[in-house]
């Protein structure tokens, strides 16, 4: 099976995000990066498919050259090959999906896996856009998946905790949510293998953004709170404040 996994390099979730001087991007000083959290479930799903069905897992990432670090982490987890589409700019989901789809067209693929949402841009749409551009079926927010006989049975998390069941022909696009699996960490052997794996870099050639960022702003500050009191004696005051002052009950 030819398995592709698209991973994003994103600021770690403990990063403090402040608008940069240009007013459009965040200030990159002191920011650390990691594979965007949900993409790890996609990587694990891909590696599990390889373990069950044979074949190989190829990682695709569009990002700066520095993203080789995240790509190598994916290889160390158990992926086989990788392509880095080099681009230093921020792009929206449309531009990202267009660049990824153009690359995917040149690679054999039975299934293309994504995270259901990036932790930074949070479009929750790049996977579906790639599917549309390639004319493939898509199932997003997958929490279970079984592949057999050229088809995938997938459960997707819908509103109100409902699960929608799908069966789609391969090749297909699936975006992965927590709950699909528990992702592994890299072991020593993987880390050694990753060091030796060549990660070819090609220019991403991303088109212009579909939605362009005009400006980035900090969120509105929350107003100063107060400690109502200590211990169970404070509960009546709290309820009174919620009713009379905050008017939420």
């Amino acid at each position, binding site marked *: 099976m030819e398995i592709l996994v698209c991973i994003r390099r994103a600021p770690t979730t403990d990063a403090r995000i402040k608008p940069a001087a240009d007013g459009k991007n965040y200030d990159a000083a002191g920011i650390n990066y990691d594979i965007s959290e949900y993409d790890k479930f996609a990587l694990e799903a891909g590696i599990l498919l390889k373990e069950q069905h044979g074949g190989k897992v190829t990682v695709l990432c569009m990002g700066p050259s520095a993203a080789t670090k995240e790509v190598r982490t994916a290889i160390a987890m158990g992926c086989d090959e990788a392509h880095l589409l080099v681009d230093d700019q921020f792009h929206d*989901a449309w531009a990202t999906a267009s660049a990824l789809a153009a690359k995917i067209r040149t690679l054999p693929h039975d299934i293309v896996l994504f995270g259901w949402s990036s932790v930074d841009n949070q479009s929750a749409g790049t996977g579906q856009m790639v599917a549309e551009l390639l004319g493939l079926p*898509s199932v997003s927010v997958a929490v279970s998946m079984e592949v057999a006989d050229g088809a995938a049975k997938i459960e997707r998390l819908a*509103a109100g905790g409902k699960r929608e069941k799908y069966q789609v022909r391969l090749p297909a696009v699936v975006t992965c949510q927590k709950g699909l699996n528990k992702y592994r960490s890299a072991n020593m052997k993987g880390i050694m293998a990753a060091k030796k794996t060549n990660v070819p870099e090609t220019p991403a050639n991303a088109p212009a953004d579909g939605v362009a960022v005009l400006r980035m702003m900090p969120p509105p500050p929350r107003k100063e709170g107060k400690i109502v009191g200590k211990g169970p004696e404070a509960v009546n005051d709290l309820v009174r404040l919620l009713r009379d002052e905050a008017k939420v009950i």
Partner: protein
Amino acid sequence: MSDVLVFVEYAEGKPAKAGLQALGAGSRLAAELGGKAVALVINGDGAGLGPKGASRVLAVNGDAVKAYSPDGYARIAVDQAKAINAGAVLASATPMGKDFMARAAAKAGCGLAADCTELKLEGGKPVAIRPVYAGKALIAVQAAGTLWATLRQNAFAEATAGADVAPEAVKAPFAAGDLLAVVREIVEGVRGRLDVAEAEVVVSGGRGLKDPAGEGKQNWQNLEKLAETIGAAVGASRAVVDAGWRPHGDQVGQTGKTVSPKLYIACGISGAIQHLAGMSGSKVIVAINKDENAPIFKVADYGIVGTVEEVVPALTEAFHRALHG
């Protein structure tokens, strides 16, 4: 002058609350653009949407759309957006809206402004505001052509006035068999359980409640009782979900659900940056923690310093007296 197409989501034969909120937002945007809000309903009758802000209602029904399909819904949205030459296409940022709107936008050759919390005009063109980095920043975005956007639940008000309109029937441009992915079956969630992402009040528990299979058993029962008393959904920190104490669907935070209820009560939660990212959009935040230096108190509107063992049951009683006399 341009019209706005609004996908109005239906659930169990009725317009969903989030769908009506999107229609409200669409009718206001259309008015500013000098155009009309056109409601698009799939697998629903489209009745009663005039007074909710629609100037026209397009209703697509029949076997081809009985079951949800991301590519099917995307095709209909793109066709209708073209037919009315829409300046903007909106839907709610529900699991359904987030899913098919991305496909639709790509089909139309456009980007998608996802999960927006504000829409306005700047220089005569629609601009959307959306939280990114789990709410640690906001960005204002503008589309090159038609703005395709999904709108965060509970961030927009429903419209409250408008004349009745008769829905116009529109045929689906495909047969069910032509679709790439279609829902075959729906497995219901746990009955009667409110989803944290949709609830107006959320009570969350953290590691401070301790293991429900051990010494924390009573604490979690107390938390459930508090939630029941005030009609809240129960949420959790990731520490609790990773320990297997609560299902992962309950996790609130940057890698869990983003919630913006009118009241959020955090019990025994320290307030790590990833947790705050998911809940600091709540209207009012209450924190209960035994450590007065816990970071959660920095974002809380009201705090009680105390143990969950003592404070939670007392609070339930106080709510009970206030609400039920």
